């Protein structure tokens, strides 16, 4: 990973300024807030009547679990794909 400023004229350095997200504790806070929102959304299924087409859609928390597992698998499979599909950046230019 290359760091450091590029040569673009639009570049300027704001050295010392600290942002809220620079503090990892705040990033952790966001993560746990996300967990809480997910838990609430999961429980939401208990409080309304779903109008659905297929039986499986009525399973408790179906959409949440489907979204979580689906995306998780998506990334893991893509990760494996890298092993045989990834080449150097200039692969086609050589």
């Amino acid at each position: 990973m290359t760091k450091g400023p590029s040569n673009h004229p639009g570049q300027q350095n704001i050295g010392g300024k600290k942002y809220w997200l620079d503090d990892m504790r705040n990033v952790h806070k966001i993560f746990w807030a996300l967990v809480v929102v997910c838990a609430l959304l999961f429980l939401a299924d208990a409080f309304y009547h779903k109008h659905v087409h297929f039986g499986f859609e009525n399973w408790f928390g179906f959409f949440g679990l489907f979204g979580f597992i689906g995306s998780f698998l998506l990334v893991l499979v893509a990760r494996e794909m890298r092993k045989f599909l990834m080449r150097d950046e200039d692969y086609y230019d050589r």
Partner: protein
Amino acid sequence: MIAEFPPGLLLIVGAVLVPFLKGNVRSLYSLALPLLGIWQIAVLDPGTFGTLSVFGFEQTIVRVDKLSRIFGYIFYISAALGVVFAWHRDDWVEQTTALVYVGAAIGATFAGDLITLFIFWELTAIASVCLIWAGRTERAYRAGFRCLIMYMLSGILLLTGVAMHAVETGSVAFNNIGLDSPGGLLILLAFGIKCAFPLLHNWLQDAYPEASVTGTVFLSAFTTKLAVYALARGYAGTEELIWIGVVMTAFPIFYAVIENDLRRVLAYSLNNQLGFMVAGIGIGTTLAINGAVSHAFAHILYKALLFMSMGAVLYRTGTAKGSELGGLYKTMPWTTGFCIVGAASISAFPLFSGFVTKSMILTAAADEGYVIPFLVLLFASAGVFHHSGIKIPFFAFFAHDSGKRPDEAPFNMLLAMGITAFLCIAIGVYPQPLYALLPFPVDYQPYTTTHVVTMLQLLIFSGLAFATLQRTGLYPPELRSTVLDFDFFYRKAGKAVARSIVEALSRGRAQVEGKARRGLDVWIERVFHLHGPQSVLARTWQTGSTVLCVTILFAVVLLVSYLGD
């Protein structure tokens, strides 16, 4: 009078003046043309005009109905936004071809017959390749050429298909075509190339990210959505399209996860969004077609917005690679915000445009009892949030701090992004005006408790998966790399095969040549043996043996003539 002027020609003819104008006047003029176009479509009465007879076939240059009108509107709107985004750019080649490109796409949209469609189809192809070349890099030049080959293939298929279709049906009118005839199949393939069907898709991911910052914004809107329009017109309810669409939604997202160039990630997600539209067209109910068309409308806006935001990043930092970026929110807060609006819209968050359009397609699939397509579309919806909704803004603007502190995007770019972002939210919050433009009457309510809660569950849990993978380090890092896709077969394997064929042929030629030469040598040697300086026939004969030979010859002649009597 303007009402009788074919809508697309307005831009094509208007573009002629662009090279002669300068600076703000040129940009202002380029903006006025699409705005005039919007007004023109608004005042055009439904119906057809400009009929003429060619080769005994009735051609209809312009057909105005609800389907062509809504695509006309969104094409003009996105052209206007593209001009604002490119306001600062002083490049008459790009600015002229962009207008011709838009005009050709609109001309094709309003074409009432297949011959007119073909002409504009080809013009779109040529103009878009010129727009790619206007990127003016070696990579853009090469990618444009590969793209051109695919477009030409599409053109040939279309022309052949139209000819066969015309012979079969006796008409070139562009209405429902279907797959009942071989001509229909060829036309579908022609549309399929431009719509980036699986295995025919790679020109899109190959070429679009190679165009300029502003060129890609134009490119993202027209070619593929023109193909969606053409499919909706010619192949609504063709069941095969459901499965093609389903594959299109699912298979590009794996690539989107591991691709490093963020504009290429957007090209993959563009492909995935086209899948939703194609599936909707395949389902073919009025709800599904409305869903596909409205999704195309919403998609053009949020995809342009995403390409604009990544374009602004590229413009300011000189790169759009995830591995080089990060932390840009600190100095590009507005661009970050607009990018997040685009990301939320493509992810179909409630209150954003994608939600009110995509849910129609999902509902239509469920209504018709397509279980597997429904599940795959659901998976792709979660996946699109993953790679477009989170990955794009996350790796560009957050993630690890790259140390880059670029200026905020120029004002014209921010303005274009701002208006587009506003439209994305406006459609999501108040979809009725869009629904009123759709080809069929809309009896659909997107904001039901079930829709909102289930969609939020799907998306937020998908976000949780992303966060978990990031925290555990399982998420594949952004790496400088090339990911092999189907284009490998023609860029590497095909090249290797072609090379080995050429080599084998030249080897064969050398062998044949060698043999022929050896044969020739033997023959020449023999001739030389007989006629050469020291050979039998070249020697000076003695008088006695000459007389003997002549006598024998005479004897033979005499004998033959006696026997002959």
